[in-house]
């Protein structure tokens, strides 16, 4: 029994950053804006949270700063790709490079280190089994992260805003004719994706009580993989996040035994995504206007 609880706890711990980033990415992608940027949003969120927590001593200020960091990068992406109609794939890659560069630069400026920040106030307590479960239950970001997907699913499917997001992502010209402010909806969607993915980074940094160089380590791309594997449906994307996290947990717990090499477990999300976009499982149709420059 305790093993099952430990397994679930570890899975949730790994899944939270994915859930945050995927819930944000789903909104932006449904509004027609490509989310290659999730990795960069997360990294900025993590760094801003560390700065905030370090200088204030309060993890909550860290959360606010992380939200601000994610929002700032979301807005940069929005301005470049919506206002200036830049190619979203190119700006996405630029945003990710920029996030790595800026966090390294300011890590050096603020903490005089090229690898990590000092320990800051956070939410996580390191430990295994019961201790881990307790720490998880006491971490407000865990609850927020678990709520992210249901809230986004409700937002996308049951609110006027969600209807507009979907309209703008499927057929912006038609939406425009009906009086939907296409650009404003997209701005809002991308800003929201910045905040949510940023929170994923905040969770990482505050869980580990520090920022380390490039600490997101591809998690933004795993979240993107989950979105695509979930065929752009929030709930399915959330399930994909949990699935990917469970595979990682399994790999960690089986490490002692001679089993599958860890590199193969790392590949699972990516292989599944390629299988999904190939349409081998079910027809995979992205939002029709995804990545289109003109609206």
């Amino acid at each position, binding site marked *: 029994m305790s093993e099952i609880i430990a397994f679930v706890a570890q899975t949730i711990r790994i899944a939270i950053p994915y859930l945050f980033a995927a819930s944000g990415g789903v909104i932006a992608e449904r509004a027609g804006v*490509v989310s*290659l940027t999730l990795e960069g949003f997360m990294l900025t969120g993590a760094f801003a949270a560390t700065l905030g927590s370090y200088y204030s001593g309060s993890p909550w200020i860290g959360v606010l700063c992380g939200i601000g960091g994610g929002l700032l990068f979301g807005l*940069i992406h929005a*301005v*470049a*790709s919506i206002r*200036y*109609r*830049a*190619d979203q*794939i*190119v*700006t996405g*890659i*630029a*945003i*990710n*490079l*920029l*996030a*790595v*560069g*800026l966090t*390294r*630069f300011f890590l*050096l*400026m603020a903490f005089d280190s*090229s690898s990590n920040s000092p320990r800051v106030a956070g939410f996580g307590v390191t430990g295994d089994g019961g201790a881990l479960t307790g720490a998880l239950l006491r971490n407000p970001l865990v609850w927020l992260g678990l709520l992210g997907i249901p809230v986004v699913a409700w937002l996308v499917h049951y609110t006027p805003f969600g209807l507009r997001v979907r309209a703008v992502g499927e057929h912006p010209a038609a939406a425009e004719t009906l009086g939907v402010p296409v650009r404003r909806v997209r701005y809002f969607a991308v800003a929201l994706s910045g905040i949510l993915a940023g929170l994923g980074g905040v969770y990482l940094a505050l869980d580990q009580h520090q920022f380390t160089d490039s600490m997101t380590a*591809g998690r933004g*791309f795993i979240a*993107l*993989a989950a979105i*695509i594997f979930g065929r752009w449906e929030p709930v399915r994307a959330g399930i994909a996040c949990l699935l990917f996290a469970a595979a990682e947990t399994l790999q960690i717990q089986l490490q002692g035994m001679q089993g599958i*090499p860890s*590199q*193969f477990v*790392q*590949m699972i999300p*990516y*292989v599944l*995504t*390629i299988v999904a*976009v*190939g*349409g*081998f499982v079910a027809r995979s149709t*992205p939002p029709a206007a995804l990545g289109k420059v003109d609206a």
Partner: protein
Amino acid sequence: MTTIGARQRVEEALLPPLVALLVALVVGDILILLVGQSPGAVYRLMLSGTWGNWYGFGQVLYKATTLLCTGLAVALALRAGLFNIGGEGQLAAGGFAAAVMGLVLPAGTPGIVAIPLCIGAALAAGGLVGAVPGVMKARFGAHEVIVTIMLNFIVLALLNWIVASHLHVPETLHTPAMRAGTLSRLMDWISPFHGSAANTSLLIAIAAAVVVGWMLFRTRAGYELRAAGLQPDAAEYGGVRVGRVWIKAFVISGALAGLGGINYTLGYKHYYEEGFSGGAGFLGIAVALVGRNHPLGVVIAAFLFATLSQGGLAIHALVPKQMVEVLQGVVILAVAAAVPEVRRLVQGVRAGAAR
């Protein structure tokens, strides 16, 4: 008409690098002032540390070699209307295959046999990795951006596993040294280059640029490739098998990125090491963008980014070298966002003047 056409073409070609340089200077100034240094001194140091001495220049040549290959890879694919962001994995696969080929060949194999075999292995491995998104797109309609991103992670994980479990020298992350097929360094020919990693891969990369230019603009295959990129439906109607062109373009693109791997393995270290690609695959996108997908532009842009990257090391005493990483991101963003805007402005002014 022809004179206006020529002037416009020059403007088109110069605009991206100029905008890039300008924006990089502004952001660079801000960062330098933030650190409390004088921009003038930093830029002087950056120039003297790259083009100002033989070692620095050699390092620029070395870094430009890899970027030239990955830049050509992205540019060629973009000409076919395809976005290859799998350069990172293709580059690593190419370097790995070249190193393994050099490892399995018997020691003492003459260079004239071994070098082409190693280069061929790099081309084949890169092309194989490139073929996956090409086939996935042509046969199953899978978006190449998604497939190439995911493939990067898969290829790198696979190579890491092979090296970690079968091929590494104990206590390291690299393969044993090659027994045959290594290229000579430029310092063997021109002694002032002493210590720099520049090697004859540079000449191979430049030859690749010439071949790509010839192929794109002088051959039927290149014409079909560009037609498929400009208007796939029209090309299909005109008798071009667009699906086949996509696959072909992706194979060549992957092979070009794979070729970049020889710079490190055949030319410099003589082994494959985990993580040697270090972002050069992604920077290839910036190189292609600034070079406007033209082989000559790509060569110039490769030198620009190589200078920036080596310049970062040169100024490290004054400003953290991470500044350069920021500038790389800024440059891409500026070229992607500002160039169309500036072009619209220029066109607006010109339209106004014509009236």
